[in-house]
């Protein structure tokens, strides 16, 4: 009896040591990609057009891509109310570019094509944003649509 308890404790200890907790933003993103609530938008085709907003938190945006040079693509806009670390999750690994209100490209700090929390995330990109509106441009890609969840991960780096 004592031996089985000891074995069990040891097994739990081993299991606990090997698994780092998933970032909260990953868990949130999985929840929204799986369960929504979903909002359907159609991407703006050109840089001059008004891009639909994907700014409400705790929502999944299903973005219909439009015809652009080289395939499908288009833009949406994200109004950031918080300065700090943000994570962009996509259901499909498509080319993405983020620009600030003055047109400057925002560099991604890291990219990944999967996360441990769920299989729905095919692209995870981490970036620092200030308060302001950003234009997220997809494509060109053969994919006709992509689902997006943006998570604010705090003032500092979450990784």
């Amino acid at each position: 009896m004592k031996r089985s308890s000891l074995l069990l404790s040891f097994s739990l200890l081993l299991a606990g040591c090997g698994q780092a907790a998933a970032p909260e933003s990953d868990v949130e993103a999985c929840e929204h990609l799986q369960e929504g609530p979903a909002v359907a938008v159609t991407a703006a085709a050109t840089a001059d057009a008004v891009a639909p907003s994907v700014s409400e938190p705790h929502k999944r945006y299903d973005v219909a891509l439009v015809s652009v040079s080289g395939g499908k693509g288009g833009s949406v806009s994200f109004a950031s109310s918080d300065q700090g670390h943000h994570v962009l999750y996509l259901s499909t690994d498509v080319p993405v570019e983020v620009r600030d209100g003055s047109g400057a490209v925002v560099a991604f700090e890291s990219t990944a094509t999967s996360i441990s929390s769920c299989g729905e995330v095919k692209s995870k990109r981490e970036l620092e944003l200030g308060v302001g509106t950003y234009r997220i441009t997809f494509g060109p890609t053969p994919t006709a649509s992509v689902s997006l969840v943006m998570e604010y991960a705090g003032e500092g780096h979450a990784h």
Partner: protein
Amino acid sequence: MRALLVSCLCLAAGCAAGPGEPFAVLSARVRAGLDRPAGRDAGDGFQRLSNDYQVNFTALRLEARALELVDLGSGATLAFDPANPPEGYGLCHNGHCHRDDGALVDYAVISAEVTGGSGPSVLSRLPLTSLNVLAGEDRALDCGESCELPLGKVGQVRLELRGLTAEGLVRDGRVPARIPELPFRLEATLPEGSELSTSADVEVSRHLSPRVGLTLDVGLGPRLLDGVPFDELPAYPLPLDAWPASIPAVQDRVRLNLAETALTVSVER
């Protein structure tokens, strides 16, 4: 003889109120201010907004009606799914839903409607007027008989609102700028019954101190004017009072943002 008996019983039980006295006496104050996080600082006194406009407030007043201390009754138990609210309500978060007429209604009120239960009851209502948020407000409330609290449990503190008035300068952070730097005056009027609320846990009983010191801190967030479509408003330049309250896009945006205002209650006994 009966009074003596009650007094003796109270003494034995450790009760605080004597016969004929209220069970507790409230002293309340309200503090209000504007949160200015460093990430919003655009220099020269301006703050960044999420749509890249920048504002420099010269006046910011929250038009309040009253402060209420509420016993939630059966409404203390959530009786509906905020993700799927009853007909007439939508956009439920932070403890309240948006009613179809634009009012912010607390979960407890809706829960009581759904269950037909006793619902919340107001233990004390203290009249309030305009709060100067920009200068910072720290006001002791004169409540007279409303300071006398009956037996019950304050489960919620509500700040009933009339609206918001903001004045200042607005400019565009983008290049090229969408608008020149301009003065603005914005008046957002809220429907009757609009309120902000926060939970509290103040029991009023024979066994607890009869003095309740309650402070409500109102922190207007930096998001207050986020998303206000300054470029969609009538022709510029505008006189200070030319932005009518009837512009729906402005009204709706400010109401939504105002609903995110943080309330904090602290209690001393």
